[in-house]
């Protein structure tokens, strides 16, 4: 009796061919993207999406063409933060035209497809019971389509805003084997760094993805009356040594930055001379420098 490997092909479904076609479609789209960058943390609530929105804006202001994938399928926030939530996606045979900010940054997000503010991402199924067996596969499929089927055009940078969890980067690395690098976001708290370290290990040691550097978000607060800097987190421990070595910048907490996210206005465009804006622009310069050094 012949064995699996001795049979010439599957029974006619050509499953491998179908999967290969999906990946070819993805690679074809990514061929016009110079650099792909994942923004990750592992920890929730550290400001990944705010940093992604502002890094995208900073790179755009510096003359780069930038696209952003809101890879947080279940908790998409970037359409609101970047002020394009009312955009209507246009479908063409060549792909889906992304939403575009006033400065020209392109965005695709699940938020642009959901019916209502309070509508969760719910997939058609015979039953939602035991959906844990297939939901994450569906989410990776959605992410693949977001990257492959959006008409990005030619991009200098495609940023991917990852949801919390150390398991998220492997999904992206599977879809984008040539992932250009990772920007890690943390806040000064020990709790945050404890989780973020796991993500760094996953990226650096397991997946062998280049770490562009670390952004320390909400590092301190500048009093708007006296200008004095106050730390927001009362930890005596300095930022982890491993993080300090690759520090791209320490972004101060600025209520106007949070307000811009809620209003959907572009903070960097509106407040170009604030300390936070200067740090964010420096982060963007360091990201550009990283790719200039290692093309």
């Amino acid at each position, binding site marked *: 009796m*012949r064995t699996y490997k001795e*049979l010439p092909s599957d029974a*006619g479904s050509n499953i491998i061919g179908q999967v290969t076609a999906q990946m070819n479609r993805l690679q074809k789209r990514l061929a016009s993207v110079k650099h792909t960058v994942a923004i990750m943390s592992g920890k929730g609530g550290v400001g990944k999406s705010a940093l992604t929105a502002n890094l995208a804006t900073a790179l755009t202001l510096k003359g780069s063409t930038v696209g952003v994938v809101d890879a947080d399928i279940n908790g998409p926030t970037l359409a609101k933060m970047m002020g394009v939530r009312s955009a*209507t996606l246009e*479908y063409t045979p060549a792909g889906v035209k992304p939403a575009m900010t006033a400065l020209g940054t392109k965005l695709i997000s699940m938020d642009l497809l*959901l019916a209502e503010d309070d509508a969760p991402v719910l997939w058609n*199924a015979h*039953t939602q019971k035991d959906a844990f067996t297939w939901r994450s596969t569906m989410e990776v499929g959605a992410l693949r389509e977001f990257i492959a089927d959006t008409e990005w055009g030619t991009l200098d940078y495609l940023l991917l805003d990852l949801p919390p969890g150390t398991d998220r980067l492997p999904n992206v690395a599977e879809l984008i084997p040539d992932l250009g690098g990772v920007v890690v976001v943390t806040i000064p708290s020990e709790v945050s760094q404890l989780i973020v370290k796991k993500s760094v290990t996953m990226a650096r040691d397991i997946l062998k993805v280049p770490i562009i550097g670390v952004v320390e978000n909400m590092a301190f607060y500048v009093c708007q009356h006296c200008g004095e800097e106050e730390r927001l987190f009362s930890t005596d421990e300095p930022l982890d040594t491993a993080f300090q070595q690759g520090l791209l910048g320490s972004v101060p907490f600025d209520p106007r930055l949070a307000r811009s996210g809620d209003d959907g206005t572009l903070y960097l465009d509106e407040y170009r001379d604030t300390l936070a804006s200067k740090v964010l622009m420096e982060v963007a310069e360091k990201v550009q420098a990283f790719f200039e050094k290692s093309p």
Partner: protein
Amino acid sequence: MKFLCTDCDTAMKFKDVTRPEQGSVTALFECPDCFTEIAMFLNPWETQMLKSLDLKLGGNEEAAQPMQMVRSQLETAKTEAMPNEFSPGMGSGETAEGGKCPFTSVISDAFQEEAAPVEPSGPVWSAEALERLERIPAFVRPMAKMGIESFAKDNGYAEITGEVMDAARGNFPAQF
């Protein structure tokens, strides 16, 4: 996934696939030498997994449409986010204007969505027979139903009753 006819030592070929019934898909494979058929049942989880991978049993010769998986599978999508020929919650190939859309037909076929109820063209089921049918385990029920209907048709029964099911029982390993 491959299937071997152990009598002929020949790779079996995909023949047909049913639309899901209660989430379960039945796929038929045939030996090209002796024409023996086997049925493979996918339980609802396996059927859903296939959908989530955007794969089609029997192959997919249609060109992929942009975001076809998200567009066809997202239940909570806003209508205006979809092209005008596609709205979530519509039946297979149905458009907002009530017509048939080639794109959504392709998508529905690709994902083997539940078929809209159609008027039965073969024997009708009595209430008692339907009740007995429900007692058959879900994962074999579609195949059993097809087999009983085929038996009734071949033997000239216009209605499937308990007696017809008893007569057909010898053809099936499952008790009903």
